[in-house]
């Protein structure tokens, strides 16, 4: 694994009496897509604001792109791109002007700046909107423009705070494609989201955050496996005896009757358990009419760790 591009240890942040971030530590290796998944008010934006130097480090230490956020904020700012949760585009400028302004703010030389603007406009497919005022763009286009702006200066890390909040499904998929493409070209991505499917489909690694604390971390697969809750649904010729029989298997955690047949909660990987389960039923002479293995979703993971659904 390459050296971490983001290293956070013991970070805490409070607003008067509200504890927004409550002692979190994590690191993100170069080239990865790392997600903070958590409900509204979990502390995601506060964390991003500290990591991007917009809020002071109150407690703990934060290094981004090799620089200490508290000691070398200017170097950090030079190394990162940001897409904020709320729209931060001047509605009275055109697409081209937004990027020209941004490039100048980062002191990009004229030739490089102009070439990069063209490249970015092509990347997010806004060629036809180049000279259109921002106020005449759709929500998805504005988001794409903000991503283009965040990438203008070739940042080592791109921070995306809820990048698809409020977008229609088609625009979401579009934005996801850009994020993947940008990451393939070498940019490390830190994103926050409260959408399970977003974290699931984009991230190399996920940290689940709730009430300012990281409550679980890992790949999407690891998180789901950690739950050990694959579910096998079965319909058999003799459900009562079959259920009794399977309850004695060591991998089986729980057996519950279903609408039709019954379901078995498995510790570990459900697919791997299927052969011994079927073997056991066959040995007892019970016929199997239907089988289905369901992997848990990140929703289930969140419920498991917090005892509640992520919405709310």
């Amino acid at each position, binding site marked *: 694994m390459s050296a971490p591009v983001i290293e956070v240890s013991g970070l805490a942040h409070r607003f008067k009496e509200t504890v927004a971030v409550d002692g979190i530590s994590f690191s993100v290796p170069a080239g990865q897509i790392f997600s903070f998944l958590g409900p509204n008010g979990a502390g995601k934006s506060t964390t991003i604001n500290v990591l991007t130097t917009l809020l002071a480090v109150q407690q703990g230490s934060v290094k981004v792109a090799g620089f200490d956020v508290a000691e070398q904020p200017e170097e950090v*700012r030079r190394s990162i791109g940001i897409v904020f949760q709320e729209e931060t585009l001047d509605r009275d400028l055109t697409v081209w002007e937004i990027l020209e302004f941004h490039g100048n703010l980062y002191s990009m030389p004229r030739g490089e700046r102009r070439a990069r603007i063209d490249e970015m406009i092509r990347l997010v497919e806004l060629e036809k909107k180049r000279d259109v005022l921002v106020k005449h763009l759709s929500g998805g286009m504005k988001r794409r423009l903000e991503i283009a702006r965040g990438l203008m200066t070739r940042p080592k890390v791109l921070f995306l705070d809820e990048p698809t909040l409020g977008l229609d499904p088609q625009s979401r998929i579009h934005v996801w494609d850009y994020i993947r493409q940008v990451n393939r070209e070498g940019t490390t991505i830190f994103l926050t989201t409260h959408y399970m499917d977003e974290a699931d489909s984009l991230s190399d690694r996920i940290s689940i955050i709730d009430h300012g604390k990281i409550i679980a971390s890992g790949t999407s697969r690891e998180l789901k496996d950690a739950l050990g809750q694959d579910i096998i649904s079965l319909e058999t010729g003799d459900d009562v005896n079959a259920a009794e029989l399977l309850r004695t298997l060591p991998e089986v955690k729980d057996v519950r009757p279903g609408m039709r047949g019954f379901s078995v909660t498995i510790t570990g990987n459900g697919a791997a358990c299927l052969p011994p389960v079927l073997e056991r039923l066959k040995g007892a002479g019970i016929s199997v009419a239907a089988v289905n293995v369901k992997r848990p979703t990140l929703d289930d993971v969140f419920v498991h760790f917090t005892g509640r659904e992520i919405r709310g």
Partner: protein
Amino acid sequence: MGHQYLAIYWRDMLRFVRFRALLFSSLVQPALWMAFFGIAMTSSFDRLSSLAPVPEGAIAIPYLTFMAAGVMALTTLFTTLFGGMGLLFDKLWGLMREILASPAPRSHILFGISLSGITKSFIQVIIIMAFGLLLGVQFFVGKGPAAIALSVTGILLFVAVFAIGFLLLSSTIAITMESPESMQAVMTLLSLPLFFVSNALYPAESFPPFLQAATALNPLTYLVTGIRYFAIGPDFFALGHHYVYTATDVFSAFLALAFFAAVMFSLALRTINHAVVN
């Protein structure tokens, strides 16, 4: 020094010319002042002041000429007093996050805003001068082209240093405020005394002593002094008063404005360096 302030300047000017109504009103408003207020007051004031005897050697000037210099100063005051308003909207709409998160030093926000405010004031002042001359204002009487160029430079120098002070004051207030309404209220409260306790439209010399002392604290007074010196001359008679400006008077007026600008700069810089946009 980097050139990031030019980005701030460019964006502000872009918005200025893009909003046609704003552009139009800021260009026409001073001309309207001149046309209506000037012409209306001139006839009555001139009738009154014709009663006062003109002292030996002093040149009497029409009221229109006297007030044209004042209108230049007042227009600069109002334009610059609201020059920081854009920062408040940038803050409220989250646009300032982009700038604060960039490597551009925060002082550049102030430089950019000052530069665009100065540009707008220059445009307005030049329009008033040109329009005034058209209406018969007696500016630059008896001066050749070189002397006129020098006088205009002097006027613009005074306008610039005055503008910097008020633009930075306005920026400080904008960064501190939470809503356009409250900023509007503060500005109105601030502009009224500045407007009335000055020598812009009538001689402050006839004020009671405590008001005269207040005029000495008003930066507008020093701007008016500078403009009159360069536009009308060091020695003239208007509204029953004999005005004599020495080179020292004018130089100290300039220093007073420069001092005001410097104080406002340190205040604005401190405010913006501590600004947190969340």
